[in-house]
Each structure stands twice: as C-alpha cells, then as structure tokens.
C-alpha cells in the first residue's frame, strides 16, 4: 500500500475536523475492508482517521424497547451481547456469522453499514428491521440509506455514530455463503413487526434491498412455505463465477424460508 498519515482522534468532533483539513483522508473503523483495499493499492488516501479511540462510538444499550449499537461495536461484541441476544436474537446470530472469528473481532457494525458491500450481512438486518442510522449530522432511515454498490446516503465528512434497531415481534436471518470468500451469495433477513413484515436481501443485487414479493407473501402467512412459494425472476440479480442470477433468485426464496423457520 502507499503510505499515509495516521490519526486517532478522541472525539467525533475531532474526526470531522480532520476530515475537513486533510485532502484525501479516509475513515477507518475495523479496517476489514479498507486495509485489504489499501494493500491492493486500490485506494491511496493521504490520511487515515481511525475511530478506534472514540469511546462514545462503542457499546450496546437498550433504548425504547429496541437496542442501539455504537458504530465501533465489533461483530463479536454484538454476537455475544446479552442485550442483543435477548431483544433481537436474529441480529446476534447474524453478527456471529459474518466473515470469520478474527474478522468478527475487528470488524464493526458502523464500518460494515457505511461500506454497503453488496454481499455484506449487516445491511440486510438494518433494512429488514427498519433500523435508524445515526450520524454525526442527522438520523437516516434504513429505507433511505443504501443507494447502490458501495454507495450510501452518507455525505462527505459524515460518519455513522450508532444504529438503532426497533424490536421486532419475530425475526430471522439465513445466508448462503460464497464457498470461497464466505460473503453472502444470498442472505435474507425477515422480520415481523407491528408495522408489517419486512424482508431484506443482500448478496443478490448492487446493494441490500427489500423484496416486495417476499413481504407480501409473508404478510399473508409468515411461514417457510409461503416464502418458498415465492418465485422471483432473475432480472437484475448478480451473476458471477459462483452463482447465476437465476440461482440467486431461487436462493432468495430458499433462504427466506429458512430465515422464517429460524425466526424467533
């Protein structure tokens, strides 16, 4: 990788200052995507601003019946959190299946969501649960957040500080991992909430998205059979070495059925 300046500010306010003053600065959270990218010389920031020193970005707390997770909380911490396991067990389970144990010890929820990798797990939960993304500037609804492949509603200098998840009645997540990278080929997060059923899909499109077809079927009957009966066309889904669009379309129904079966 190319060399860069390194900064570890102690507060969110300092982050904004650094990002404003350094021309080509990038924020690093857990670094699980950014550092491999830098190693491949696919990005060459002038400076790295490390969020690891900011205490206020860490931790899980109960809030308004749901839970709020600080942006720098690692996947392992979410997975093991008694609070998350009690309130939204599907979220704890999802966090425990991201990457591998070492990635879960470093990777953070804020980093994952801000990156909007098309095959990442968290975006499915954020969308599926109708979470709210809190930044240093505002609050953004999940439905307004994911804009495309590696594209979000975040503006320059805006960083995620926390994500608030309302408690669903029931939720489940199931993913079909890429056999090599273990990213999701298809991951489906389903949730039955007071406001209706939400079903979010990752891995299949340019970024996580909600499936109206699944939501409508599961709204009628929140059962694996209803999910499995949904037949999606292949149009618009990703094709790569490991999965065709048609296969992904099929897996969405299968994973949705498994997510519903596992939902608690």
């Amino acid at each position: 990788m190319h060399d860069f300046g390194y900064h570890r500010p102690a507060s969110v306010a300092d982050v904004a200052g650094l990002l404003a003053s350094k021309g080509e600065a990038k924020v690093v959270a857990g670094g699980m995507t950014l550092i491999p990218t830098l190693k491949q010389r696919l990005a060459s920031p002038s400076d790295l601003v490390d969020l690891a020193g900011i205490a206020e970005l860490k931790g899980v707390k109960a809030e308004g019946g749901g839970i709020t997770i600080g942006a720098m909380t690692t996947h392992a911490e979410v997975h093991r959190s008694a609070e998350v396991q009690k309130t939204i067990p599907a979220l704890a389970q999802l966090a425990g299946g991201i990457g591998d144990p070492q990635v879960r010890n470093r990777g953070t929820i804020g980093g994952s969501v801000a990156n909007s990798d098309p095959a990442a797990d968290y975006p499915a939960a954020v969308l599926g649960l109708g979470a709210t993304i809190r930044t240093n500037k505002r609050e953004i609804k999940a439905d307004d957040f994911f804009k495309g492949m590696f594209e979000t509603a975040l503006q320059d200098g805006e960083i995620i500080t926390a994500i608030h998840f309302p408690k669903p009645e029931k939720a489940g997540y199931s993913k079909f991992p890429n056999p090599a990278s273990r990213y999701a080929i298809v991951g489906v997060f389903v949730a039955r909430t007071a406001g209706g059923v939400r079903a979010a899909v990752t891995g299949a499109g340019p970024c996580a998205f909600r499936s109206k077809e699944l939501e409508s079927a599961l709204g009628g009957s929140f059962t694996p059979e209803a999910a499995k009966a949904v037949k999606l066309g292949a149009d618009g889904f990703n094709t790569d070495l490991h999965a065709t669009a048609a296969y992904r379309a099929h897996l969405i129904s299968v994973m949705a059925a498994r997510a519903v079966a596992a939902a608690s």
Partner: protein
Amino acid sequence: MTATGIGASVKRKEDFRFLTGRGTYTDDINRPGQSHAYILRSPHAHAEIVKIDTAAAQSSPGVIAVFTGADYDKGGLPAGWQIHSKDGSPMVEPPHFPLCKDRVRHVGDQVALVIAETYAEAKDAAEKIDVTYKELPAIISTADADKPGKPQVWADAKNNVCYDWHLGDKAATEAAFAKAHHVTKIDLVNQRLVPNAMEPRAAVGDYDRATGEYTLYTTSQNPHVIRLLMGAFVLQIPEHKLRVVAPDVGGGFGSKIFHYAEEALVTWAAGKLHRPIKWTAERSESFLTDAQGRDHVSHAELAMDKDGKFLALRVSTIANMGAYLSTFAPCVPTYLYATLLAGVYTTPAIYAEVKAVFTNTVVVDAYRGAGRPEATYLLERLVDKAAREMKMDRVEIRRKNFISREAFPYQTPVALQYDSGDYDATLDGALKASDWAGFESRRAEARKRGKLRGIGISTYIEACGIAPSAVVGSLGARAGLYECGSIRVHPTGSVTVFTGTHSHGQGHETTFAQLVSDTLGISIDSVEVSHGDTNKIPFGMGTYGSRSLAVGGSAIVKAMDKIIAKAKRIAAHLMEASVADVEFKNGTFTVAGTDKSVPFGTVALTAYVPHNYPITELEPGLEETAFYDPLNFTYPGGCHICEVELDPDTGVTKIVNFTAVDDVGRVINPMIVEGQVHGGVAQGIGQALLESCVYDEQSGQLLTGSLMDYCMPRADDLPNFKVATQSTMCTHNPIGAKGVGEVGAIGSPPAIINAVIDALSPLGVQDISMPATPLKVWQAIQSAPAKMAAE
C-alpha cells in the same frame, strides 16, 4: 515393535519448532545487507513489449537497480523431460527467459525486476515503470488451442501443439473394439487447479565476494535439482560455487519442485549487485506464477464383451501446458498419465493419444498425483458409466475385471509391470468400513428428510517412487531418479542421517529417524535427519511422486547396510571373532554361540579412536553413503468410497462419510501415513467439489486469482475420514514401502463424483463435471429429465 520403532505412531520430532514459531522458512531468513526484489508482471495475456521506460523507477527512493529482459544475459529455464511425437519429432521446446525479452505470454509473466532497500520501495518504484504493450489476441481454451486459426503462442508450435504423442497398441485396440458387445463413451474435463501451498514461494539470493560462492535460499522440494538446473542451464555457475538451501518449506504438493524465474533472478542479481536479495511472493502472485495442475480434456471409450469384461480402452486427451514448458510438465500427461490407464483392470488392449498444447495461461506441471489423478478419474468415471449402461453392479464390474492377487508381477499393455497388490482385499475392506451394503436404507431415510443421498466408489492404482533411471532416461527424462542417503555415526554413537529427499510436511525427520533407530538399535533421540542443503547433503533428487520413503528411505537402508557391514568387522576385531560369526541385533554385536557382545556405541567410538583396531584392513571412521536407483516404480492402490447428501434446495453437497482403504506397502509411522491420506483426500475433495482455476476466455485474466474466488477447502467443508491400510509389500525395495503422499488425491475425486451422480441418478442425471459446486448441482437438478417427486 518398540515404542519408537518401525510401525509405531511416534510423535513428530519436528513439531516442537513449528508449534513454538521457531521454524525457519525462506521468508524468515534475512542476510546482512539484504535488499528486496519486486517483479513487475504483465497485465496482459499476450502482448508485444514495444518499449520499457525505467528512468523514473531508477530514481525512485531506495531503488538499487531495475532490470528488464534486455539486461538479462544468461540462459532460459529448461524443461527436464523430452517427449517425442508419434512421428518421431521432438516436442516444441520454446525459450523461457526469467525476464521476458520482447513478448509476454500470460498475465503475470515477468517484465522487470526492481531491487530496492525495502520491499515497499521496490513496489513503489515498479509503479513508475512505463511499459508500452501492443496487445495480441490470446488463446486460453484447452479444447480449442489446436484448432486452426487460433492465436499462436509460439511461432514454432503450429496450432499450439507442443507434442502429439501416443502409447499402446492401436491395431490390437481397434480389433478389440470391432468385436465388442458394447462400447461406453465418455467426455471429461479434468479442470485446472492451483496448488496453493500455504507458504508462498520465496527466494533469497546471496553472493560471497570472498569465495565467489553463490547461495540461494528457496522454497524448494528438491534443492539439488534446482542447483543442477540453475547452475548448469540458466546461470552457468558450477556446482562447487553454488549452494542451494531449502529450509523449512510450508507445503509443496508439486508446485515447489520446479525451477522458477525468481530463483534465477535473485541469484543472478545478487552476483551483479553484491547484495543479498529477497523476493517473497504475495498470494496473488502465487496464483499468477506457481505452476498449476491438471487441465485435461479427454474422450474415452471402453469396449466390453457381453459379460462386462473389458476388452479394450482408447483415450484421446488434450493437455494444457500453459505458455511455457515448466520443469516436468511434458512427462505429466504422458508417462505419469497414459501408463496408468490399465488401472487395476485386466484390459488387454489400450491405446492413448495425448496432444499437449500451449495457451496464454500460467504453466501447468505436476500437482499432487500428477497425471495419475487424471487417469484414475477418467477410468473410474468410465467404469461407473459402463456399469450403468450394462446394468451391472458397480462393485461387480470392478471385481470381474480386477487383476487377481495371483497375477503379480503383472505386465500391463501400457508399459508398466505391477509388482504386488490385492485389489479385492482393499475393496472388501472399504465396502465393510463404509457399510456399503446398508446404503440403500440410508438413502431412503435421507429421502424422507428431502435429501438426495448417493454413494460412490473408486478402485485405483498409481505408480510412484518414479524410476528406474535407465528406463526414465529412455522415456525422455534428462535426469536420473535415484536417491542418495548418507549415515554419519558420530564417535559417541549418535547418528546424523543426510537425505537427498526434502520434508515439507511429510515428517521425514521422524519417519527416517524411526527407520534408522530401529535398524541400528539406538535411541530415536540420538538420530538427527538433515535435509535441504546442498552443502551438507552429498546429492539428492528431492521429494515428489511419493518417492521419499520408497526411494530415499531405501538409500538410507543401503547406507545402513554399509555401516553395519563395517561395524561388524570392527566388532569382530574387538571380540576376536570371525566376521562371518558376528550378528547384529537390537544395537548389539554378538558372536553366535558365545556370550561375547559389543554395543553399537563401543564400535562407533572404536571407529574414531582406533587404538585397538584392524587398521591395516579398515579405515577409521564410520560414515557411509549410498545411492539407490530403484528397480521399478512402486504401485500403491486401494479403494475409496464416498457417501454424500445433496440438498436439492441449494445444490449443496455434503460428504457424510469418506472411507479410504489403501495399500501403501510397509508403514513406518501409521500416524503420519494417516495424515498423508487425510491431506490427499482433502485435496481430492477440493478438486471434486470446490476448486477450479478459471481464466476469462477472451482477456486471459485469471478470474480466480485470490482466495476470495478460488475455493480452498476449509474445516467446515470437510468430514472426518475413515482411513485404513491393507498392505501388500513392494517386492523390489528393501523396505517394502510403496508411498502414500498422493494416494488420497488420486483415489478420491472419482469416488466423490460417482457419489454425486449416484445421488442424482433417481432424477436421470448421468453426468456432472468437477467441481460439483452447489450451482452446478442445482442446475443439474433443474434440467434433470425426471423432477423430484413432490415431498
């Protein structure tokens, strides 16, 4: 058997250093004043190099030198084996310079060598090299490479053909086909694989101006071979001025046999710059430069009589060599492949044609099994298909055609003479261990859970311990294939064993120590095994082809024979007895019919302190070297049975049982032997279900260029394995060992694919190609003639 003797599962001597981080791999070696190399590689599969401007790189911080093909003034990398085509013409052998001169021929080809104070600086500078390429169309496809009108990799190789070779009796084969009751035909691809030893290749070149000696530390399975090839053919450095050290090596699986450009470059540049130079591959470079494996496209036909007795086999294969000829590449699809097409069967007539082609891809060479997995896969898929077509039981068709245990030595129609084996015994063992008989009830039970269960079998043979030198020489080998072993008994009775083989995971430091300690009757702690340094070991051919114990171990035994013979003479002198009356057992020399005895240690001391010694008849000292040239190949074989369960919803294949019963000859350390089988089977499962090296057919870019896309088996992909040995002894080496390193990778892939096809057979699916990924299995189910019954 003693606790540390032959046949005991002795814990490995080498483990302590590996477990505590004290191993010394090549990248762990740092020489005083060391600089670092980065190699700029071609981004194109095929292009002319129009111009290279290195000026900006030369002045980049920390840069010591930048070299291009124009600066390189030494020889090219040689091929170690020459194959002749049907018409008698020698294979096309293109030049292979470590730095490309005027054309690049695959993505990753070496374009420039940058030496700098740090690796990061070398890499930074390489970004400043401006190369002007004129892109050319590339040929990637194995099957299409020899078609007219395709892009040509080498002007000399018309239609990209390196050689067009054949083996066997064509007329007899045709005659047998003419009278066949039934002919089963199959088309198969044995896909390209990336060996991916966990340690990336590395090389450190050093030059001593005081002595004029070059030293290369390298990740090699055979340092003497590298010294010979690099010294004699590439850099013209005489052996006495070139030391090659292969220290701890993190796996090889064939990929570290060959002489690579980077080894020559760091040695050459170290001599020019008078600085030690280290190069270490990044994994993405390994994908683009380590020799890859397999890559065959084949058509085969099996002629049978009405009872399913095999009458004849004909095979036509196209084998991809990549853009150049790697060290042993030419022999892999010929003498390591077609010679195995008899398998364990009595097929009387066989004819095989093999066309080797060049493409704009990374070179292909031996990878665990090398030729034999391809032969076994072809044969065992074909036999299964024949059984289905003949409506015969898969086991019975095999038994009916087995070479019987009484038939050895058995001469096959494809050059080899098998020395021993008992194929019914390994088959019976595997059928029992896998509960083959109870399978249908397990299939029915799985079906109730909505799963498709299948079982598959493979009965295989391989030829390893490759030799004898005179024979391989007549077949085109440009080297001998003996091995060297040396025993140095020290004055106090401890022993250092020098072997020309190389251990990179196989545990030679333990197995060979067991062999020596057992034979000489001394403590295993008194035996040290030394390997991997041309300045320590008299000579060696290295480790590949499952040869280390069968050939290297035999050399050690021969050296021990000499030690014991000399020691008996010393002991006879000490006991005032006739040599003919001296016996040696359990570390003690005795005189038959007396109570006289002398321990081994006393004899050792006497040899070095020869005060009471037959000095006029015998030299002092106790050190002997032997070279062992085998009389034949060895022929491990056995039976692998795989049971799978398919999830029709996702196409995922889960291996629920894997059984291997192998005949590997004499077993010195069962724990290590089992570990070798586990590892080989894991690579076989990788080939059958997970791994595939894929290039873009147009651009020649490697699409599976990292571990993000190339699927290596992980712990949760694999089952526990049931492994056992059921051995007959090799009849022609002093140990009786056959070899075990490759059996797992050879025997397993067809068992797995046969199981997947068996699972899918209720749907009418007859074929699936490797790797049987979830996508492929799902697609096969979608397009199956019969749909799954509604659950």
